[in-house]
């Protein structure tokens, strides 16, 4: 380039100066391109979902990221920084190893603070549950099909949605990415899918929405889900979170009775910033 410019002479100054400048400029451009290539790669290797969750997760307040072992009392104030992915968490393994027996709790009771949380399923922190497909009698094959639904806490919190979108049949969903989209009162909520797999059926009515998913991995892919004795302390914590969220969203409003959530709460308390409350409770940053 330069040698074609009138009266241009190469001097050591030019070489050093332009060398440094173009190296720096090159570095900036390379960084930018690198970021682009990496994100493309992420999509190609299907890492995007995990990344999205990771980003969302990182933006969650610490209180929402409490470790499941904190619920059970095994640990005090432990904040998860692993995206609730207990499958890869070393600490989780340690805790599991230390667990002598199933934590003793009244797991048969499905009514927790007035919520119906049946113990026959596993729960995701984003208020969805997974239940193994019960095949009809005579069928002994476990084909890895699961039903995914929204838990009672979630259902009651939202009430009756104005519009629902479910993942299409035949599409893939990733754990911790949107499995349902609920729209209500101007809010636009994505509700996280608890597991990864292929949607093979979906449906629902005014009250219950579900996806039937052929899961990728039925053991490791479920490690992060809460179950059994963890459910009660978790819901207790969630009630606290809700209370706090409601408090910051609108001063002076608390769940004074500590009792059950009314269906369609937003109608009863129109002054609350429900968008913020829902977002917080459904782990949306």
């Amino acid at each position, binding site marked *: *380039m*330069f040698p*074609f*410019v*009138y009266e241009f002479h190469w001097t050591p100054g030019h070489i050093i100066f332009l060398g440094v400048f173009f190296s720096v400029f090159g570095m900036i451009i390379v960084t930018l391109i690198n970021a682009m290539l990496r994100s493309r790669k992420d999509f190609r290797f299907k890492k995007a979902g995990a990344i999205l969750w990771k980003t969302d997760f990182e933006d969650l307040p610490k209180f929402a990221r409490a470790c499941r072992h904190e619920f059970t009392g095994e640990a005090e104030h432990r904040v998860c920084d692993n995206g609730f992915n207990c499958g890869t968490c070393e600490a989780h393994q340690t805790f599991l190893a230390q667990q002598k027996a199933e934590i003793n709790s009244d797991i048969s009771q499905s009514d927790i603070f007035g919520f119906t949380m049946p113990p026959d399923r596993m729960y995701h922190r984003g208020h969805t549950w997974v239940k193994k497909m019960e095949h009809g009698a005579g069928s002994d094959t476990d084909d890895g099909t699961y039903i995914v639904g929204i838990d009672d806490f979630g259902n009651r919190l939202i009430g009756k949605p104005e519009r629902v979108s479910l993942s299409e049949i035949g599409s893939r969903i990733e754990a911790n990415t949107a499995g349902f989209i609920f729209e209500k009162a101007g809010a636009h909520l994505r509700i996280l899918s608890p597991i990864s797999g292929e949607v093979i059926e979906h449906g629902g009515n005014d009250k219950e929405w579900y996806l039937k998913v052929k899961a990728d991995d039925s053991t490791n892919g479920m490690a992060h889900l809460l179950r059994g004795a963890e459910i009660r302390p978790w819901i207790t914590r969630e009630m606290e979170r809700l209370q706090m969220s409601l408090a910051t969203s609108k001063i002076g409003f608390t769940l004074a009775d500590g009792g059950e959530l009314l269906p369609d709460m937003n109608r009863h308390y129109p002054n609350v910033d429900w968008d913020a409350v829902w977002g917080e409770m459904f782990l949306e940053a």
Partner: protein
Amino acid sequence: MNITRRNILKLIGGSAVGFFLTPLPYKVLDDSSIWTQNWSLTPPLPQGPVSIKYSNCTLCAAGCGVKAKCVNGIPCQLIGIPRHPIDNGALCARGLAGHHLVNHPLRVALPQKFLHKSPDSAMEPISFQTAVNEIASQIQKSNGAIAVFDQQPGRITSEIYFEFLNQLSNGIYATHPSREDATLSTLHEMIDKNNAKLGYDFENTQLIVSFGAPLLDDWGIPGRMRKIFGKRKESGLKLIQIESCQSRTALQSDVWLPIKPDTEYFAALAIANVLIKENLVLLAALRQITDFEKLKHAALQFTPAQYSEITGIDFSIIRQTANKLAQSKSAIVLSGPNPGAGPFNNETEKAIASLNILIGSIGTDGGIVIRDLQKENKNHIARNWNAIQDHSIEVLFIDSVDSGYALPWNLIERKLQPQHTIISLSPYLNEIAAHADYILPSPAPYESLVEVPAHVTSNVNSFSVAVPLFAKPETVIEPENLFKLITQSVGMQLEIPTTEEAVKQKAEKIFSTKRGSVFSYSDGTTKPVSEFLSADDLCKKLFEGAAWSDKPNNSHHPFRFTLNIAAPKNVPKTTNSLVLIPQGWKVAVSSSSISPILSKLFQESELRENAGTISINPETATRYRLRSNDTALLETEEGKMNVRVKLNTSIQPGVILASVGPALNETNFSDATYNDVLSLCTISDHGTWRITQAKVSKI
């Protein structure tokens, strides 16, 4: 090889990469820097053959030789002719940009008539014939005088004006020349031989005593003065400047006598006093040629102490000056008005001129010499402007040429009848033309053929021709043609020669005398007239660009003089109030006479003061609480105006130096929009406006 889509893509890709390896894109990028130069608001340069033309500058009477670089025949640059025998190859700032005057923003392209009576004082185009008819009927029915105002007398056009006015019963030929020859013309009136044309022999003089003449500020023939003063170290020339302000000439003088304002008369008498009282001059010899009793009486009117008091100069310095004058081998005493302030009064002029007689410098080498002895063939009715009766002129023609010396409109106005018609021949709508009823534009400088006679201050005769460098527009008219039309219209019989014919006649006359030599502009050679084969040959040479100059006329003639000087009556009163002295530069007292490029001097630098600026001493400024660049109100009995204040330590305390400069960016000089400092000056009965009592206050 078969053509596949892949191959084509490869080819395109390869070409794209290859393209960036060639110099082409980079060269194109680089060249675009040149293309950005094609800024639509930057004019394209004229293109075409470059040629050289020669002519003479006619912006003032000096008539310096000019070499013009032309593109497509249009001059784009003027420069002097090196080794020119008369002007020494110098052009002044005005002359260097003289070619711009053709395209001056104030130029009037068409004959116009002012509708003075209408509220907006608009101009409307008028045909020459209609204008001439209207003017002719004005002339025919006039009761008052018909006057032609010529600021550069002595030209062929001037002769035409004479002829025209001579045929009228009520014609007045009015002049207001540069007054650079003030001392010469005063002497001319004192002399018994009134056919002698006098000139200053500066080349051989040892001492010049100048009463305010701006000798080094484009006075006379600027190049000649510069050459003489440039060699002063070798020639021993001394200059004594007697002037109330430190002008550029005073700065360069050997001795500067900073007299009080307007006391030149007394300074001259004081010198005469010393010369006579102390017998410094040969009084016996002087008695042979003049009766100087009146001068003696006038000079002895006051005591040295009184002279000192009046002039503000220690008498010992006056004595020294007188001694130098008397002892110098050759000396010249001369006066010259400051171009802004008008001439001295007659008594002052006479007193200054008589010093030359006292020291015997007339007719001697290095003194005032006789340039030529001519038969005064016509009894002219030429009148200096102030000799004209007030309210007498009904129809006034104002010639297009200006003298380079200020001309207050008030001065003209007082000579006019209440009902008057003014016809301006100026090609420009300048300060004076704005007062006219008709503007019948003459050709601009370098648009017509003009002959250039010797300058009034020259010691030798000379002649050259200013050939036109530009084509003349059809909408302008030469004064001679205009007067031809007017004479026809009023039914007068008048033979009007063309300039070309007049030049030919002059060339024949020169050829017949065989005197002098011709300096050719193109090759710088000098050829004696005797070597020319014919008058035509000489004439042709003059048209090609040449200057004829005579050899010095060394004839010594015994003269007799009449020294009729009135004695001063009483000591002038000194006042504590401020005095306003207008000051101008010969080159630029009118806005239209200079190229807009002179804004470099007037507006874009502080080299020359433009209109509306006053300079005062810081001491005066402190007294009136003024600071540099303040706007102040300048008041005189005549009126008031806003001025910008400049401080200058070289100005006498109590003096306001008001610059009479061009108003470079004015486009309308009529009515109230333009305020000329000259309009604030009190014009004395002598037609001069050198001193005005003034007040200044901060706004």
